[in-house]
């Protein structure tokens, strides 16, 4: 951390991940999913964590979200170590997670309902964020009537309405096609800039990470360690047009260079596991 960062209050980190370790299993079967991982996310910053499958990304997501409380090291918001879901953290899951029995507006108002906010205020605030994700004409629709991308926008509006300090997303666009993904990326960038929303995105998608981020944390394949942290100095405000620029291509190539080695180790591992199953099975 430089001297200027230390003195500036605005640069106080919103989230500190400090030497986090998570092991699964016992005895000789121990797998280290997350291995001494440290990084920070500053206020208003968009950070992505990228790595191949099996680098402990989802474990990290669950730890930061407070859904996995049994870990070593510390994930801190201010002075508080996270060991249960924290009100400052809003989670968007990879899986489709809208409530099928609620309309769009009732889905989005859900967190306010839990907080006991009065109905008219609830509806006003939900309406505002539904409008922001561009679903104003679908407020009374049920999730079954919406496309996959629209459902993820409902989930995002549902998180934003609870006004989390930190938006934490786990591959929210993984199930969507590439075009929808780029366009939703635009929406996310726009919202993030409008709200100055501190965001941490977990992803395995390289273009998505470069398109959206200020910084990218590159993870190694098992055990999941931080390989490198890359600053993305692409101009803001940013749109998906940036995908065509030389600088964008340069970043993608640079990070792919780091990722390729990790991804091929992951692939070799899963292939040897498959051949063991095939010969013994």
């Amino acid at each position, binding site marked *: 951390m430089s001297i200027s960062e230390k003195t500036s209050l605005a640069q106080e980190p919103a989230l500190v991940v400090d030497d986090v370790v998570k092991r699964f299993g016992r005895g000789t079967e121990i797998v280290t999913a997350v291995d001494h991982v440290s990084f920070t996310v500053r206020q208003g910053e968009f950070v992505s964590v990228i790595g191949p499958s099996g680098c402990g990304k989802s474990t990290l997501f669950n730890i930061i*979200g*407070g*859904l996995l409380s049994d870990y070593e090291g510390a994930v801190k918001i201010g002075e508080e170590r996270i060991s*249960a*879901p924290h*009100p400052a953290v*809003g*989670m968007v*899951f990879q*899986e*489709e*997670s809208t*409530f099928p*029995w*609620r309309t769009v507006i009732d889905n989005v108002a*859900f*967190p306010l*309902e*839990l907080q006991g906010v009065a109905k008219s205020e609830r509806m006003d605030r939900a309406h505002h964020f539904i409008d922001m994700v561009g679903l104003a004409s679908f407020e009374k629709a049920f999730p079954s009537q919406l496309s996959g991308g629209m459902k993820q926008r409902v989930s995002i509006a549902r998180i934003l309405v*609870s006004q989390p300090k930190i938006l934490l997303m786990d591959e929210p666009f993984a199930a969507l096609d590439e075009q929808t993904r780029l366009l939703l990326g635009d929406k996310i960038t726009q919202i993030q800039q409008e709200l100055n929303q501190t965001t941490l995105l977990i992803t395995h998608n390289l273009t998505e990470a470069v398109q959206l981020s200020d910084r990218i944390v590159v993870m190694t394949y098992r055990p999941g360690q931080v390989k490198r942290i890359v600053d993305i100095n692409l101009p803001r405000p940013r749109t998906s047009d940036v995908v065509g620029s030389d600088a964008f291509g340069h970043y993608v190539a640079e990070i792919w260079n780091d990722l390729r080695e990790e991804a091929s180790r992951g692939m070799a591992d899963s292939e040897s596991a498959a051949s063991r199953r095939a010969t013994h099975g």
Partner: protein
Amino acid sequence: MAAAGSLTSSSIPATPRNVLALRLAVAVFVLCVWEGLSRSGLFYGEVVPSLLAIFVSMGKLLIDPIFWRNLQVTMVETVASLAIGAGFGITVGIVLGANRFLMRAFEPVVYYLSPTPRIILFPVMIMWFGVGPGSKIALGALSAFFAIALSTAAGMRQIDPILIRVGRSFRANIWQMAFKIYLPAMRVPILNGIRLGMGTAIITVLLGETKLSNQGLGYMIMQIYTRFDMPGLYALLILVFVIAGGVNALIGHFACD
């Protein structure tokens, strides 16, 4: 793909109109056969009464206050046994569905006891709760309980785990989890359990009434039978089937929107 010999091949498209036509045709055929047998004189006395006689008896039943009083008794018994059976069944189902240890211990017991004939407990119920509605309600509740408990436990385990993670991530308390996530997510399996439970409750209540009682539709069936009023008996049976089927259809309608 109209392969000859295929079990599923059919040259008639299953449009709603064709389905209705087939149903009507079968109904008319059955009624014609019935009326034919009735007029043939092949059976003693009135074992197969004419459709007209049954129809007239049904009219008499529908204006008979005794029928309505017995119907009311049976309805009250069924609803009471369903309410009691659902109360215990949903509670036990949630506990079994939520707790792996208790599930291992008790679900096989519930599962294997479920199809056993509860009617053999009838004498016990009569001793405990008397000849009146009490013994029928107790037996009906017992039979409804199993279907509802098993269906609720299965529904509990089928909840998409992501919805529970969402609830936890929003820090919902235990009551909010129960009433805003678990119960709405289990609405369909619970209503299906209630529908099955209702079916067995009606059966059990009527069975109990035909065995030993002093009121109710089952009792009335046996009364008409001892008088050997065959048109009246058939008329009453048809009414009971229509009522039971109608109630099932009503609950089924709620179960799948």
